[in-house]
């Protein structure tokens, strides 16, 4: 019965339902505190995808207050709006006085002050992770898109920025953002994933939440110019085989891209989700190579140098190469992000309130094309059943899957397994380790880690990251 409310107030079963049940009753400040304290219980981010933060909870109960409260809710805990929100007074009865007028937000809207989802930033401040556990649909809000920077986020005035294309071309050219926007453009909805995502999870369950195990993947609608269009302007020498892409950040990030990719689906993008791309995504322009590891989609793109050979930059030799400890050799130029999926609800650090119906949901994606199917296991991989895929299923794009599940209250291990349209199926940890060898060394990442993720549900409903190797 609580589910009918969950759509519009972002609530959870026990606390908000209890609060809603009291509509019309005056409640004491002590009761209010008790509800507010719910967020501090050990289930932390709550039992649902719509897990209540303190704000969401007070927001929900604020609705209760609107009905007939005789007391003022404690406000001190959210006197300051969370990132991306503005703090407005909460009306005693929003039907009895006009709401705020348009324009007071300066013309650029903000999310509710009761919503506080943010990216999780790693201790070295070099990567931030999308809060997948509380995401909906397939599009990642631009402000929650994952980030990975190697020299901070440059602040670039587009009027001063140029993209220079040179090397083995007939006509070296430079383009401003305004120039770029005059070309015919395309918009495509693509996922982007860091090849280091989930690398920490190979040998053991390491991170507590799906945000931290899988959050270096996001999906946006990207708009830009096909790189092939630009290369048609400059012309290519017959020996052209690779293109060095270089950024205007402090890392002057550089990667070598095979010419075939540049002439097929590569884009130079300037917009994300219908507006100018965010600075942390490469404003004013970035390379976008669909289905390939995020690092090679060079942000703050300033230069493309056409060559007959790769450059063997630091980021394609020392890093972003895949050491195969089985042989001692490293795979180089491993670009494609292969099929992968993860259950986002229920997931690590949530708690189910009790036996009964739950809709398992999550995301699946493949750098090789469309997701063909997603299978769900609730018994640690012994048996599998097909999940429903949310239309439209787009190539090289995150796909939302859903699976109805009645939990009997006994321990369960939840897994999802994606297969893409090429027939490739997401492997197990054991398969990846058997193929590439184990790796468990400080400072060494197991790139392209796409193993099947397991979430263990205990009898008390608590959910945690578990590993098939124990």
């Amino acid at each position: 019965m609580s589910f009918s409310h969950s759509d519009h107030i972002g609530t959870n079963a026990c606390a908000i339902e209890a609060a809603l049940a009291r509509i019309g009753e005056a409640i004491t400040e002590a009761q209010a505190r008790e509800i507010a304290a719910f967020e501090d219980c050990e289930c932390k981010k709550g039992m649902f995808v719509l897990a209540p933060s303190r704000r969401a909870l007070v927001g929900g109960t604020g609705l209760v207050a609107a009905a007939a409260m005789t007391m003022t809710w404690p406000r001190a805990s959210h006197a300051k709006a969370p990132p991306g929100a503005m703090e407005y007074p909460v009306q005693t009865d929003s039907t009895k006085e006009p709401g705020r007028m348009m324009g007071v937000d300066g013309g650029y809207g903000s999310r509710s002050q009761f919503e506080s989802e943010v990216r999780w930033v790693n201790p070295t401040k070099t990567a931030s992770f999308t809060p997948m556990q509380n995401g909906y649909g397939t599009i990642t809000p631009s402000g929650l898109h994952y980030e990975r920077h190697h020299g901070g986020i440059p602040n670039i005035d587009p009027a001063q920025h140029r993209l220079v294309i040179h090397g083995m071309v007939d006509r070296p050219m430079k383009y401003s953002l305004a120039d770029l926007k005059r070309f015919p453009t395309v918009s495509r909805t693509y996922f982007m994933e860091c090849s280091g995502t989930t690398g920490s999870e190979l040998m053991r369950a390491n991170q507590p939440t799906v945000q931290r195990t899988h959050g270096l993947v996001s999906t946006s609608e990207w708009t830009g110019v096909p790189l092939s269009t630009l290369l048609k302007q400059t012309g290519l020498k017959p020996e052209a085989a690779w293109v060095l892409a270089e950024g205007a950040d402090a890392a002057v990030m550089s990667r070598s891209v095979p010419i075939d990719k540049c002439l097929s689906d590569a884009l130079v993008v300037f917009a994300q989700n219908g507006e100018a791309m965010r600075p942390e995504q490469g404003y004013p322009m970035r390379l976008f190579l669909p289905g390939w590891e995020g690092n090679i989609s060079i942000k703050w793109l300033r230069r493309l140098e056409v060559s007959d050979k790769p450059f063997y930059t630091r980021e394609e030799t020392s890093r972003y190469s895949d050491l195969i400890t089985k042989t001692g050799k490293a795979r180089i130029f491993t670009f494609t992000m292969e099929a992968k999926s993860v259950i986002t609800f229920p997931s690590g650090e949530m708690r189910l309130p009790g036996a009964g119906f739950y809709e398992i949901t999550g995301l699946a994606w493949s750098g090789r094309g469309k997701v063909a199917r997603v299978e769900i296991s609730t018994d640690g991989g012994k048996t599998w059943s097909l999940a429903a895929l949310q239309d439209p299923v787009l190539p090289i794009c995150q796909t939302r899957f859903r699976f109805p599940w009645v939990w009997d209250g006994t321990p369960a291990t939840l897994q999802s397994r994606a297969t893409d349209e090429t027939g490739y199926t997401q492997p197990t940890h054991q398969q990846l380790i058997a193929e590439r060898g184990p790796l468990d060394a400080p400072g060494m990442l197991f790139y392209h880690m796409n193993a099947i993720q397991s979430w263990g549900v205990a009898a008390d409903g608590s959910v945690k990251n578990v590993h098939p190797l124990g």
Partner: protein
Amino acid sequence: MCIHWADAVRTAVAAATASFVALSLAHAQGYPNTFQFGQPASEQEIAAIAIAIPADGKGLPLGQGDYAGGKQVYESACAACHGADLMGVANMPNMPAGASLRLIGGRGTLTSTKAVATVESYWPYATTLFDYIRRAMPFTAPGSLSADEVYAVCAYILTEAKIIDKSTVLDAQTLPRVEMPNRDGFVPDPRPEAFK
């Protein structure tokens, strides 16, 4: 029958009109092959930013450096993060931390679960070392070292890594000829793997 005939004429006219419209629209919507946007990039503009050095050393700048000079550069510009012993400094804040900052050692570990990948044990080309230091180091002041200083600090690191000896002077000719221990340690991507 008359009506049918009239309908047929109307249909034919409509079809002709439609095809005419379609043709004219197709003409109007055509995309040219080339566009007159952007500006030619001059040689000077390109030279100012074309800093990438491929494995054959093409584009390496004039200048030179050796171990002794490199030791001085290293101690003032590098040691704070990479350690006086080139073994890295643990838990550096706000930058890639720990063992990834280690520069030397690790030979023979690449088949180990505890692999140690450093310039010495892992990097395939010395030119990459020059390129990366020049473009991105030191972390707090990237691009601040002169060509001589970059050659010198490369000589210092490669000597400490026992790849060259202390008397080696690195410049545009000698640097690309340095043979890195893991030069042949890289293979093409064999994926997709055949998981059953």
